[in-house]
């Protein structure tokens, strides 16, 4: 190649620096607008939870009255306890079952694996409204019904329908299995062989090597299940029968009745819960020393 063609190449390859700069400014501006679009509505909800008026559109001064009112509302407090109870129980069950299933599916190949895989992943892709309807009919038809589990939970008397817990476990198993499986797939299998080589039997290998290595995945899966369970509205709404509210179901009822800053206050509370969970998951991830760049969101 001669010098002339070389320069020609360079000139053709490099766009005008001015245009490039303009383009990247535009792109950055767009990016910032994009993030504003994502955050502004939420921030406005939080702001108006402190509004000293029934309006969520006109600012009328600062107050925390709506929070007082929220805390005085027995229904809201009860639905919060319901939410927590359902989330804890369904998370515990689905974490154990999902983790076991992940190990079975990731570590072995056997006939019918594809079918099992499909069954396990279908609850993730199916729209929640379809799953909710399926469960609603099923609980009616099977005679399981919407019997409540009467239980004392941290000093609160709750009546939580078994159907709700079952519904939550049904969609959470899959999510836990996906997360744990991803962790398993990344795990170096020779570590387990090394343990076996060092006289650890199958159980000891699991207990001393597999489980500790898997822990971040299991905790991540549990956290995801907990978050999904706390956030779920549709499946709870359709599987709870009459009179049972989790916090989202309660909020939906309130929205249907009319917008007040009290809903903003409850929303802010739920937002804080979400932020706390995200914070915990970040802590978990950094402690696990993972350098995965994508933020896991359950798909």
């Amino acid at each position, binding site marked *: 190649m001669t010098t002339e063609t070389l320069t020609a190449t360079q000139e053709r390859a490099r766009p005008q620096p001015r245009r490039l700069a303009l383009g990247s400014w535009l792109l950055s501006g767009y990016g910032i607008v994009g993030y504003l679009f994502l955050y502004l509505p939420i921030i406005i909800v939080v702001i108006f939870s402190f509004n000293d008026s029934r309006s969520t559109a006109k600012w009328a001064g600062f107050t925390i009255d709506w929070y007082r009112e929220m805390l005085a509302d027995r229904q809201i407090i009860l639905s919060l306890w319901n939410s927590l109870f359902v989330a804890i129980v369904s998370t515990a069950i689905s974490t154990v079952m999902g983790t076991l299933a992940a190990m079975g599916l990731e570590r072995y190949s056997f006939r019918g694996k594809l079918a099992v895989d499909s069954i396990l992943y279908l609850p993730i892709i199916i729209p929640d409204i379809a799953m909710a309807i399926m469960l609603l009919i099923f609980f009616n038809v099977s005679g399981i019904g919407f019997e409540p589990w009467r239980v004392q939970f941290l000093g609160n008397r709750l009546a939580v329908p078994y159907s709700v817990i079952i519904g939550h476990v049904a969609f959470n198993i899959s999510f836990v299995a996906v997360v744990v499986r991803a962790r398993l797939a990344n795990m170096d299998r020779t570590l387990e062989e090394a343990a076996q*080589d060092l006289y650890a039997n199958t159980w000891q290998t699991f207990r001393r090597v597999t489980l500790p290595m898997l822990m971040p995945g299991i905790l991540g899966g549990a956290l995801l299940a907990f978050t999904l369970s706390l956030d779920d509205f549709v499946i709870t709404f359709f599987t709870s029968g009459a009179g049972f509210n989790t916090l989202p179901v309660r909020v939906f009822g309130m929205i249907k009745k009319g917008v007040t800053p009290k809903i903003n206050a409850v929303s802010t509370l739920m937002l804080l819960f979400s932020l706390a969970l995200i914070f915990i998951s970040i802590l978990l991830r950094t402690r696990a020393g993972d350098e995965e760049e994508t933020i896991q969101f359950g798909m």
Partner: protein
Amino acid sequence: MDSTPAVELCDVVKTFGEVTAVDHVSIQIQDGEFFSLLGPSGCGKTTTLRLIAGFEMPTSGEIRIGGETQGFRPPFRRPVNTVFQQYALFPHMTVYENVAFGLQMQKIDRAEIRRRVGEALEMVHLQGMEKRRPKQLSGGQQQRVALARALVNRPKVLLLDEPLGALDLKLRKAMQLELKSLQEHVGITFIYVTHDQEEALTMSDRIAVMNEGKVLQIDAPAELYENPKHRFVADFIGETNFLPVKIVQLHPDIVVELGDGTRLPAGWAEEHLRVGQEAMLSIRPEKINLYEERELSPPNATTARVQGTVERLVYVGTDTHHTVRLRNGDTIVARLQNFYVEEEPWEVGETTYAQWDAAHARVLSKE
């Protein structure tokens, strides 16, 4: 000394679906031996090692360790320990916990564990590193932890799967010598898997060369190099010249013929070869000398000699590689030591006579 082999493989076969990874392998490894499995990647050497460790179960055949048949015994019931290729140190445990792991699993009492872990770490010069995590160690240090973790159990046999593969060249050389002296010190049988022929030659008492699942030759390093019994072995270990020949005579002496009718004596031929068959004559380049016509002695039955033209000279420091084009078109390389700097070297285009001792020439089958 008892004569039971430390490890014995009898006609072992391992297939994965359609693929035969280990193909009727029989090996006897003596107590205290440094034994290497050498071959290119995919030759079945690692699978053989994993069969001994118990990570894989043989499709057929038998494996005995210290005279005991292993059958389907899981790895944790076998008196062998492994040093893994990427070390497989438990990342969630400290160095101490890693080394102590095997002893804890064997329910050895605490004081004893403490003592033995200390000894093991001292042996690999890692005292004071007990509290560190594997991630905080260099590659060489991790390697030592892996060694200590295996040796602390005082296994009958130590299995090493390319343990130096991840280290850089200089460190690898140093570790080779250290491993060898460590093995002599502890007196444990080492079975060492590697694809690096130089590494195997340096360290081993005996080497099994494997290719495509089969063991081709088991011998001491010098024997393997000087007297390869298989074309693959001659080719894989060191460098060699292959000349296509036809076998003219096998008894009492071996005589082969080049394409142009030049007859050459040879020292050894594979047993199954017959007169009239096509074969390969293998001669190591350093066994060949080049002479001018006036230097030649009268021909005799123990010296092979071919005429050719010097085609290329490659200076590589200690030697110069002389490529000689023979009259029939084949080339051979002679490696001449640069003994005298001032000596007149050969020039390209000169006529030369390549000559070697017939004992160094080996007739190997074409495949």
